[in-house]
């Protein structure tokens, strides 16, 4: 299940009112929903789809899908959580429709080991990060770039589990793979991302 705090949005008491207005087909309520929840949905879509047009398409498809199924939304979760799930699904569908480009093997991004089991290149300590707003913004850009370098199947598992906060079972269902494969891919994706960040973040780098 997605973390509720991922999605923000209006508090629970307001949701009863807007749900009633949406179900009544009130145009202003649909626009309000888009303006309230759209920014976070666009941020989610952009994490999966770096091409802006694709991200916007996914958000549009997600809202249209949500509007169609508003009658079936039972209100057991917050609207923000429900919309979060829908936009993640829309982004994954959009990704699947894209032609896959040749990508680096995850094996190339994992740590190497000597025959005796020691690391080929011992890990180096990292400097402190995120001490000011500018550095946090730069770090965010760096992370998004490095996450995009991961192979699709591993990147999507990392995004779903570590960034979007879905659990292993939900990730497995959305990806169409076993829970065991989710765990393996997540661990490998984290190792690969760690390796991609190391040259930039190790002590002594600016």
């Amino acid at each position, binding site marked *: 299940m997605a973390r509720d705090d991922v999605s923000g949005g209006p508090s629970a008491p307001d949701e009863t009112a807007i749900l009633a207005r949406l179900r009544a087909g009130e145009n202003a309520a649909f626009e309000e929903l888009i*303006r309230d929840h*759209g920014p976070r949905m666009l941020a989610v879509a952009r994490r999966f789809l770096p091409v802006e047009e694709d991200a916007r398409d996914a958000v549009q498809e997600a809202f249209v899908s949500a*509007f169609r199924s508003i009658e079936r939304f039972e209100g057991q979760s917050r609207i923000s959580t429900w919309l979060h799930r829908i936009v993640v699904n829309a982004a994954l569908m959009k990704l699947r429709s894209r032609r896959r480009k040749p990508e680096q093997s995850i094996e190339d991004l994992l740590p190497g080991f000597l025959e005796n089991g020691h690391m080929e290149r011992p890990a180096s*300590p990292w400097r402190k990060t995120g001490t000011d707003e500018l550095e946090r913004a730069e770090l965010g850009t760096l992370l*998004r770039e490095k996450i995009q370098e991961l192979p699709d199947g591993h990147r999507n598992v990392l995004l779903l589990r570590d960034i979007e906060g879905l659990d292993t079972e939900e990730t497995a269902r959305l990806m169409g793979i076993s829970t065991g494969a989710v765990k393996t891919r997540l661990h490998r994706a*984290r190792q690969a991302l760690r390796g991609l960040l190391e040259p930039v973040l190790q002590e002594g780098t600016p």
Partner: protein
Amino acid sequence: MNCREFVDFLMEYLDGQLDASQAAIFQEHMRDCPPCEVYLDTYQETVRLGKCICEPDGSMPDDVPEELVQAILAARKAG
């Protein structure tokens, strides 16, 4: 336990999925092997930094582009 095994079992250790004897072996290796301790620290830092990018000041736009709002409303009416 060697460094390769340490890295293989790292996520299970952090998730609390190793039993007490396995966890003790894991911790013993970490005490004796500073690079593996660093590896664990930086692996955790990688996960922490990843989570940071979805915080409000990470990558969230202030609002939705107006043309997207209008496109969604038009798609709703058309659909």
